[in-house]
């Protein structure tokens, strides 16, 4: 069963079952299982956020630092709640106007070449 | 450099830096 990993995550995040609670600066938790080829999709519920707070979600290789946000370097791809911007290598591009917020269900799909 | 930095702020205590949402971003469209 795929869960939030209990150790492949920033120490300052609090993990309770499959829910992640963060505070202060960006940091990352990854899933217990990764994928390496084919097309995969996961969904999460964005439960709750304090005013003026934001999250980022996406796909990350294990090389990406846990003490930064997803999309910070070349090892990960992130999608931000603020303005719905997508990030890779810390560069933000327009992606989904208006962004997302608590109460939304977020889906992330990755399509990896099968034969490489 | 810091001896003459005009905007240098003296602190009595360590100050915890509050990171910005775009702390780790280089560019943002």
């Amino acid at each position: 069963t795929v869960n939030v990993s209990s150790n492949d995550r920033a120490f300052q995040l609090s993990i309770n079952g499959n829910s992640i609670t963060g505070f202060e600066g960006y940091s990352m938790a990854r899933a217990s299982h990764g994928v390496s080829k084919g097309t995969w999709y996961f969904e999460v519920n964005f439960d709750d956020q304090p005013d003026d707070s934001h999250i980022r979600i996406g796909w990350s290789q294990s090389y990406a630092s846990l003490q930064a946000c997803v999309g910070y370097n070349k090892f990960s791809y992130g999608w931000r709640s603020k303005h719905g911007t997508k990030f890779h290598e810390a560069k933000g591009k327009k992606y989904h106007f208006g962004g997302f917020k608590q109460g939304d269900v977020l889906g992330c799909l990755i399509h990896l070449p099968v034969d490489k | 450099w810091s001896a003459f930095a005009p905007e240098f702020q003296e602190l009595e205590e360590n100050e915890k830096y509050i990171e910005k949402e775009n702390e780790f971003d280089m560019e943002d469209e």
Partner: protein
Amino acid sequence: SLGDANNDFFKINQLKFRKKMIKFARSRIHGWGLYAMESIAPDEMIVEYIGQTIRSLVAEEREKAYERRGIGSSYLFRIDLHHVIDATKRGNFARFINHSCQPNCYAKVLTIEGEKRIVIYSRTIIKKGEEITYDYKFPIEDDKIDCLCGAKTCRGYLN
């Protein structure tokens, strides 16, 4: 009897009122430095190194930004694996203490009330008028920074 930590707490808070011990003046080692205004016994708390507490990755980004602006990054002081104290733009005059390979002080990280703080202690007796120095213990890097401490046992580089 005050536990060790309480004792440190009281002593570190007295520091603010004992500023007279040291003064800021031109240094033979590099630019400006701090000098003892009175003779100081060994293992005395001299000054706290104060600045902004930031996470390691934020420090790495700032170090690159400072280098780009030619500010140099020797006001970043690592307190543990995850955090650094940055006195480049906000802090106190402890940032002016120069490095020496044969220092008369040392830096110690104290945890007081859960907060990690850096205190500079005297290592030996420090005579009035002597420059305060400690070993920065910078990590070894490829692009070197020359050390100007002039001590007999100088290692030649800060990093």
